[in-house]
């Protein structure tokens, strides 16, 4: 798929030749797409197309077999695959710099590095810390921004207390953005489902991400909640400067919300473009609705 890269506004995320194999199964085959900075993009496709696999590769839960995922931050481009830690290659033993790099990421790398680079995610089935209060969920998410010095915490120094106060205020601010202020001291597991969904997005926002990946954010929500959610997602993009990439089955939400859509089927990108183009793309129609046998050969 040809990609046009605007030199002035480079894409925040650039995926090239992403391939993922599970044993003999080719789950993703040479996927390439880019996500523009400060946009809302969607990843759609029929069931089993590999959307969640792409997400898991982007957020570091799977180690891609081949390909490159680059996150462009104002400072540098970060290779999201190498920071997971990769096996050594023979050539590494000649080049000490590469070897040291690999050794470092092998020891200290992992999924958490991806989040630290600025990619946050939510899960298809909500994964909250159920026996902790809503506000504590948000405090956990701010872990990296806090004063984690053990002695400072045990002695309750002024700097430590200030850092905790700041964290609490940030957490309350996010709860208010998501309309959850009243649930602050309730256990996350007790909240109604719609609130849990929103709390999970709030928690992801607390890691101060550049790119927010939402895995089926509207699943299980009623139409009113879905509308609220789409407003909320827009608000996050407009007011908090975060780029959003989402997987969603609710087509009306996707068409209404996103500026750019990538369609996957059988682990391959079959269409890529703005909602209008994608909606009328023959391959997409074929994938979603099926075609007659004669047309099938043409579209593949």
């Amino acid at each position, binding site marked *: 798929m040809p990609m046009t890269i605007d030199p002035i506004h480079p894409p925040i995320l650039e995926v090239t030749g992403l391939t993922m194999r599970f044993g003999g199964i080719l789950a993703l085959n040479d996927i390439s797409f880019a996500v523009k900075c400060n946009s809302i993009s969607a990843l759609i496709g029929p069931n089993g197309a590999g959307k969640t696999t792409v997400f898991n590769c982007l957020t570091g839960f799977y180690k891609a077999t081949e390909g490159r995922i680059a996150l462009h931050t104002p400072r540098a481009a970060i290779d999201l695959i190498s920071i997971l830690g990769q096996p050594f290659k023979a050539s590494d033993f000649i080049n000490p710099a590469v070897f040291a790099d690999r050794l470092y990421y092998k020891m200290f790398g992992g999924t958490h590095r991806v989040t630290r680079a600025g990619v*946050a995610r939510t899960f298809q089935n909500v994964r909250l810390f159920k*026996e902790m*209060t809503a506000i*504590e969920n948000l405090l956990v998410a701010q872990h990296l921004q806090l004063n*984690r010095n053990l002695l400072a915490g045990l002695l309750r120094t002024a700097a430590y207390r200030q850092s905790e106060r700041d964290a609490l205020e940030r957490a309350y601010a996010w709860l208010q953005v998501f309309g959850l202020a009243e649930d602050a001291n309730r*256990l996350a597991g007790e909240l109604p489902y719609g609130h849990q969904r929103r709390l999970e997005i709030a928690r992801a926002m607390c890691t101060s991400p550049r790119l927010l990946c939402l895995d089926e954010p509207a699943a299980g929500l009623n139409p009113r909640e879905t509308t609220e959610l789409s407003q909320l997602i827009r608000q996050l993009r407009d007011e908090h400067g975060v780029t959003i990439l989402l997987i969603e089955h609710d087509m009306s939400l996707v068409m209404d919300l996103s500026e750019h859509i990538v369609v996957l089927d059988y682990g391959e990108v079959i269409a890529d473009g703005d909602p209008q183009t994608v909606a009328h793309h023959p391959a997409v129609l074929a994938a979603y609705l099926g075609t007659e046998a004669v047309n099938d050969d043409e579209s593949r």
Partner: protein
Amino acid sequence: MPSTAASPAASEVRWNLVFRQAVLEAAAAFALALLLLGPIVGLVLDGYQVKNELQRPLLIAAIIAVGRFLVTLATHTPAGQAALDRFNARRRQPGVLVVSAAESGRQRWWLLAIIILGLTLPFLASKYWLTVLIQAMIYVLLGLGLNIVVGLAGLLDLGYVAFYAVGAYGLALGAQYLDLGFWSALPLAAMLAALFGGVLGFPVLRMHGDYLAIVTLGFGEIIRLVLNNWLEFTGGPNGVSAPAPQLFGLEFTRTARDGGVPFHEYFQISYDPLHRFVFIYLVLFLIVCLMVVVVTRLRDMPVGRAWEALREDEIACRALGINHVLVKLSAFMMGATVGGIAGVFFATYQGFINPMSFNFFESALIVAIVVLGGLGSTTGVIVAAVVLTILPELLRAFADYRVFAFGALMVLMMIWRPRGLMRPRRRAFEVKGLCP
């Protein structure tokens, strides 16, 4: 019951029904009890003959039947009904209670009373009870340490006794080879235990649940077997002696070694072997108080929250940028440190240790303390540790049934209070102007 206000006739019919139900249930209980107890209690082996003493199970079964009858009747009176409702309501409540700061502030007076009691007890107790108290405090310390690993971080550690052994042997062998005293060995043994915690933690970081439990169980046994078999270094099953603590160089012996001044001569009081135990108890009590403060603060700190988050959902933790490897490791090391400190106190109070003290039953007992107290609840763990050490001493007469009673207690607890004695509590946060 809605029909209590109905006509006398209806009420009479209802009571007849209740009465019938009670009689039936009593009969069933009688039959069951007889079936269960008949062979065990009724047939007594006497020499080579079996003596028939059926009147004993009959009597016990009759008591059970009457009890069952009365309970059934009682649950149908308004008061009984209310009690039953309360009980059921409590079971339906969520497991965790969120408590505001004002509510927890009220406990401050209780805390003060307990500390004063704890400080005065050794001066009232006999030597026997003093040793029991020291034992109880050691188990409190062990419970607090394991509570970090099992209760907060959710990593089931069945070999916790290994760190206890490392602490105890750290003092004993440190004194033997490096000429360390109690006070210098205390931090060193704690650090050594932390190191062992790290050594154990590293390979098991990628394991969960059952696998982790098995590996830690193996680790505990390895430490014990090494201590038992490395004759040249540890003395093997013969054990090693451990030094007693000193108060600024004053010894608690009748005559001091190397020309020093013993404690009782310095203060010009008559010699009493009890002084040593009182001193150990007081130091231990202060350490326990300190540890309670440390653990309480740790829970509110980022690392404590990360531990609990890890227990709740490891995948979500990773998605939030928390390095789960380091968080697990820190939990292991922190728990091991506390275990090591407990070990040092155990060694110094016993004066002599051998590997027999660090078998799997100890590990199981500590896990039981944590589970019984309520995973993650500091108060619960303290209560459970004290109860589980003092109760067996009170029930010396039934020593043969101790393990049986222990098992029965665990089963009952799991049925009625699966979350432990104390319901886990969480702190409610307040931010000015935002919260009611």
